[in-house]
């Protein structure tokens, strides 16, 4: 062990000396590794920045909100079925499920997209029917005016709570409260405008109009009464237990046989986040895999130059063999040299990658700081060391096996 450490120390000394002696060649050799590591770091950093930015947006949406939505399996769809959740389901859950902070039902109205008019302007938007508890579950707050009240719902008032985009596209006054907008021929009075939420995956989160649930129901007509139910569990409640309770209630009400699949699904920001993570992780893995090929090419560059170096220094190897250098010592020295070369490239590549990531983060405002995770740094160093060792091995073995007498005669 002591021999090994000694040889390692002396080998590193000799390796650094020879790298310094060929500074230009050494830097060019490591260029492949530099580019490889820089691209790995950049790609990972950008993917990471992207996913953390999206995760942040999801958090803003309220990660503890769960939505129950009708779900039709592909087999059922082939048979022409279409599952629905109804108003009655909502009322049942509202009265029976415990440990829920708030629960609300929304009814997508004119779900195909709706034209809304104001004066001479018109735009496309979506209309949601909801009751007053929607505000607490989805956490949408008025910037101006107020949200829908229970009275609005009871009296089936033609009032609308609009998103910021709608007001902007219709070129409404800065304070749109009290203005009338036209939804497919019916006039609605604007009673409130929501705070801006920004965009998510490029989708505008502020392009919507909310009317009272009962109003939407009336507009949709009796044949089209699908609802989505959203709720927020109490902070100390187990979300799994609540899901189980809801599942039993809904299945019981629909009189499903025990082997039949659920006719609804739970959608939560938490689940979306998990799915997103899976997607991002696989994209990162694929991208990292692709750029790893450039690392491989860089490794071959190191091997190439090490082979040249061994040939070039054949006589020198002969001299040190005559002086008593053991084959192991020479093997170690050349391995260390290859290792130092690739690690040198790794460090430079890391710095370059950070720089690229910073530039990209700077030029894309939607990305808050492209982060380089520790594992990516560890991985690039591990990988470059491995490359140095693997591709340095052949030249090092060649050097160690040289016969001193032949090496000394080499011109």
């Amino acid at each position, binding site marked *: 062990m002591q021999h090994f450490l000694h040889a390692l120390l002396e080998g590193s000394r000799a390796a650094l000396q020879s790298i310094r002696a060929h500074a230009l060649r050494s830097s060019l050799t490591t260029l492949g590794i530099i580019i490889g590591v820089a691209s790995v770091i950049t790609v990972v950093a950008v993917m990471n920045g992207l996913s953390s930015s999206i995760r942040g947006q999801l958090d803003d949406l309220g990660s503890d909100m769960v939505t129950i939505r009708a779900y039709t399996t592909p087999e059922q769809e082939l048979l022409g079925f279409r599952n629905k959740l109804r108003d009655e389901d909502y009322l049942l859950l509202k009265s029976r499920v415990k440990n829920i902070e708030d629960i609300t039902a929304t009814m997508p109205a004119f779900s195909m997209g709706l034209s809304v008019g104001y004066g001479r302007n018109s735009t496309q938007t979506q209309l949601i029917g909801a009751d007053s508890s929607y505000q607490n579950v989805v956490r949408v707050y008025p910037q101006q005016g107020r949200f829908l009240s229970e009275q609005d719902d009871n009296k089936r008032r033609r009032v609308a709570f609009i998103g910021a985009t709608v007001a902007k596209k219709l070129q409404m006054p800065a304070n749109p409260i009290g203005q009338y907008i036209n939804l497919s021929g019916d006039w609605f009075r604007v009673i409130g405008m929501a705070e801006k939420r920004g965009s998510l995956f490029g989708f505008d989160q502020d392009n919507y109009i909310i009317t009272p649930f009962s109003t939407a129901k009336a507009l949709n007509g009796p044949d089209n009464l699908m609802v989505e139910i959203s709720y927020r569990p109490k902070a100390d409640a187990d979300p799994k237990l609540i899901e189980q309770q809801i599942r039993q209630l809904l299945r019981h009400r629909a009189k499903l046989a025990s082997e039949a699949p659920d006719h609804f699904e739970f959608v939560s920001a938490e689940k979306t986040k998990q799915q997103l993570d899976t997607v991002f992780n696989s994209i990162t893995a694929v991208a990292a895999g692709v750029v790893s090929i450039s690392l491989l090419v860089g490794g071959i560059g190191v091997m190439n130059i090490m082979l040249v170096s061994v040939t070039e220094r054949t006589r020198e190897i002969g001299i040190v*063999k*005559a*002086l*008593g*250098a053991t*084959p192991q010592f020479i093997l170690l020295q050349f391995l260390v040299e290859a290792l130092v070369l690739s690690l040198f490239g790794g460090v430079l590549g890391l710095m370059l990658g950070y720089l690229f990531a910073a530039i990209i983060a700077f030029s894309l405002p939607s990305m808050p700081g492209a982060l380089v995770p520790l594992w990516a740094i560890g991985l690039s160093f591990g990988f470059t060391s491995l490359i140095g060792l693997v591709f340095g091995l052949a030249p090092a073995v060649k050097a160690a096996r040289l016969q001193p007498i032949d090496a000394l005669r080499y011109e």
Partner: protein
Amino acid sequence: MMAIAANEQPVVIDLCDIGKSYQMADETFYALRELSLQIRQNEYVAIIGPSGSGKSTLLNVLGCLDMPSQGHYQLAGHKVAELDETQLAILRNHQVGFIFQSFNLLPRMTALQNVMQPLVYRLMPWREREAKAKAALAKVGLSDKAGHLPNQLSGGQRQRVAIARALVTEPAILLGDEPTGNLDSKTTSDIMQLFDDLHAQGHTIILVTHEQDIADHCQRVIRLIDGKLAADSRNSPHPDKLRV
């Protein structure tokens, strides 16, 4: 044949029936044949002979750079044929000091680092290495050139550095392969004076040469012809040495 009586010094080199052959295409070339000789401690030996007589091959065998095809060789009590590559390297490091015609200094190292190099292969702390190397450089009179690179030194100085490098390990034998072959006559006589001094200090020196002047410095001259021992004679003390 080996009638060197009245010498109580221990045997350092013991060659017994050494042969070295190379396979060349379909014929075998013999560089050394049936060579037996002994060299004792503190002998001063010249190996001479025309080119192709096998003297360089013999030197390589003596220095454990090359292995004989047949026969037995013992260096300082070690049976060379039984050693593997690593053990041979260690043996070279401890027992043999090489001095080459073309100096063979490591070009990117200073004189001091060159002299320290053989000690790198031993478990020796840097400080101790440096002290020994400085002492060796002082012995060859080059203390003031320790920080110079080989290409900043003259031929004679380079060979002195090489000699210091050979001395620093305190080897059993110093092996010189035409050590003055690349030097002018003035420098040659300086270097030979150095060898004479080293011999006087008790070192065992073996020089391969084809110059009679060099051989005249030595006590014992071994002549090879066609790979065979042709003569093994003793010189009368050198006139230079009488003066000292």
